[in-house]
């Protein structure tokens, strides 16, 4: 397992935290409680798990357009993930970070990995995200 993964910074930024990894897409509307930072979609394997402050690895968003607005609320409330890592370019997550920057001067990195690198991530490992998009294991 490589110590550094070359990711693509969709929204560049720095973050550090424990990984929370899922291979199932997630809608934040109906799927994420921005008051608590908990994943609440009962159809999702991470239902009941708190993602606030963690590096959430989710392949892509699904479901509601309001996913972006929920994530913006979470940034404002301090309950958003520290970063989001995806398999492709996900406009919903990227937009939330960009608008959070515009509105509150706070953004979070959104990093795309290729499928094999994404598959190598495991829940609980400590990750550092660098401005260049590099994801470093420690």
């Amino acid at each position: 397992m490589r110590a550094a993964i070359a990711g693509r910074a969709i929204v560049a930024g720095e973050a550090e935290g424990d990984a929370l990894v899922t291979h199932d897409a997630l809608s934040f509307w109906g799927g994420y409680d921005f008051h608590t930072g908990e994943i609440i979609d009962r159809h999702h394997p991470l239902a009941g798990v708190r993602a606030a402050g963690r590096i959430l690895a989710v392949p892509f968003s699904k479901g509601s357009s309001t996913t972006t607005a929920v994530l913006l609320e979470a940034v404002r409330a301090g309950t958003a993930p520290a970063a989001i890592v995806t398999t492709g370019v996900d406009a919903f997550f990227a937009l939330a970070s960009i608008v959070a920057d515009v509105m509150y001067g706070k953004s979070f990195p959104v990093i795309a990995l290729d499928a094999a690198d994404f598959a190598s991530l495991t829940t609980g490992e400590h990750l550092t995200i660098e401005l260049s998009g590099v994801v470093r294991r420690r």
Partner: protein
Amino acid sequence: MLKLTDGDQAMLNGDRGPAPQLAMSILVRMAGVYGADALMDISQAHIDSTIYLGDATLEFAERLASLGAKVAVPTSLNVSGVDECGWKDWAVAPEWAAKAARQMLAYERMGAVPTWTCAPYQTHMRPVFGQQIAWGESNAIAFANSVIGARTERYPDLLDICCAITGRVPAVGLHLTEHRGGQVLLRLAAVRPALQQDDQFFAVLGHLVGKLAGDLIPVIDGILVQPKEDHLKAFSAAAASSGRVALFHMVGVTPEAPTLDAAFQGRQPAQTIEITTTDLRAARAELTTADGRELDMVILGSPHFSLAEFSQLAPLVAGARAHPRVRFLITSSRLMKEHANETGVLAPIVAFGAEITLDTCILASPMLPPEIKTLMTNSAKYAYYAPSLLNTRVTFGSLADCVRSAIEGRVVRDESVWLIA
């Protein structure tokens, strides 16, 4: 590398005022995310950012409105966080109602049409085949792209309004013909016409397709019936809830899929998945999370109930009365309720004991009192989201099942067509 026109650059420089400048600055950053080379014109927008969630959604709307933002193209508005005239009949907190109403006002001040509906394609704002539009609201995106053949990316809240203010979108994705071809073939394997004619069939199929399609454009083959528009609406909403479907093709049904070959734009499907009656039964079972026959409320109208649905419901309830223990709620738009009233189909529905909520729905407004714990619905979207968002249990059934259950005061379902192999 993104190339802006002089007009785009003027907006970005602030020559057209601070609101277009803010909207264009977000749009340009998103064009970078999408990898767009250029922006392109749209001629219509639908705004999902209307849904009030909390201070951030309100602050964003009021920031734009206070900067004098005006939409540049005809723009419809999605559901809000409150039934502006009817919220006092429900458990909505006054502070929530006030803030949600402020958010409504902000978008109205921008010059959008106050349609307040998640089914804008069933209003006078319906786009036409080939029209370039920027739509939010997952069910509406899927319907507009697939059933009408209009062209929109899968727009998130907060970006839809930036597109409307500038009249521009990144020239990428589903706006472009070459990205609208099918990617995965989902073939119905010997699924009987009798099952396909069932009122629940397309909602169940949509739920399953959303799960199977992943991030690909699905092509559904093997449809033997001519679905009604509201069946395709139910399919769109279901597939965009369980999955991320923004465009689907249904061979022989949707406009870009007269043939299988056309749906794939002459290419071979990368993947083929068979859908059996067993798969559909399992998908239908997933939509029910309640295990008993208890019933507190029947809820219809996600997406918003149409005139055709009111007309279908009227004869089912005529002369009957809902059980006193069961509330019967329909969520719809002001326009549809008015049409239903004018055509005479609303009267028997109200006489049955139905209540009507406008502008919003039970998922977007905290309106249900805590004693409502078990729901029944014919909407796969309600069935998908209600357990997580409202902490309720749900039974999924046909419209006729919902009516019968409301009358009897307990869940009753005619499952005969689903039980035959």
